[in-house]
């Protein structure tokens, strides 16, 4: 069967190899303020002038790109994991893929709606950060589960 918009099977592994280090980097940047020195973009740096009373302070706001690299890496990795062809990519797998995608979009927005009602201020900013990746993450988990269940029923018969 011809399937559109899917990566070749081997990209699944590449996806994991990009996703795992990017996630570790992202979490380190978010919770431990970890920065990679050479990822500081001096050409994007801005100088900030703070005036309070008679004192004037000049600060250089160095633009650190660690979190940008981590986020792009997570997105690229998740896309490759989610949309790489199965070894035998046939129409039933295609249907499971679609079902999982719809399920994950529903699940994602239900969770987001609950978060909108229960989480506020700075904490909600964290929700938004995680929400950038949850559609793909939930999709991958759901899709693997559907395939596992399908194979499991097969063994039980």
């Amino acid at each position, binding site marked *: *069967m011809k399937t559109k918009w899917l990566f070749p099977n081997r990209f699944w592994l590449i996806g994991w190899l990009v996703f795992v280090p990017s996630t570790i980097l992202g979490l380190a940047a978010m919770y431990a303020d970890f920065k990679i020195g050479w990822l500081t973009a001096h050409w994007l740096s801005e100088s900030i002038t703070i005036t309070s009373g008679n004192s004037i302070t000049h600060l250089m706001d160095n633009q650190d790109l660690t979190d940008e690299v981590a986020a792009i890496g997570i997105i690229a990795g998740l896309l490759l994991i989610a949309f790489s062809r199965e070894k035998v990519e*046939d*129409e*039933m*797998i295609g*249907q499971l893929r679609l079902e999982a995608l719809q399920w994950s979009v529903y699940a994602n927005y239900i969770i987001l709606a609950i978060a909108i009602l229960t989480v506020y201020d700075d904490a909600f900013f964290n929700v938004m950060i995680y929400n950038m990746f949850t559609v793909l993450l939930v999709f991958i988990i759901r899709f693997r589960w559907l395939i596992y269940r399908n194979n499991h*029923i*097969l063994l039980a*018969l």
Partner: protein
Amino acid sequence: MKNRLKVERAEHNLSQAELADRIGVSRQTINSIETGRYVPSAILALKLARVFNKAVEHIFTLEETD
């Protein structure tokens, strides 16, 4: 939709894996069709019929609920 895939397969002495190979799907897909968990596309139904050299209607038939 009912199907006689298992019967046809037995008559032609084909395993699920062999049949799957011939029409380019996974063994799980053949199994899912046989157990009624998956309804194949027209293309796949025609390919299956061609393997057994039968008309599609001979292998797949509508049920009351369809």
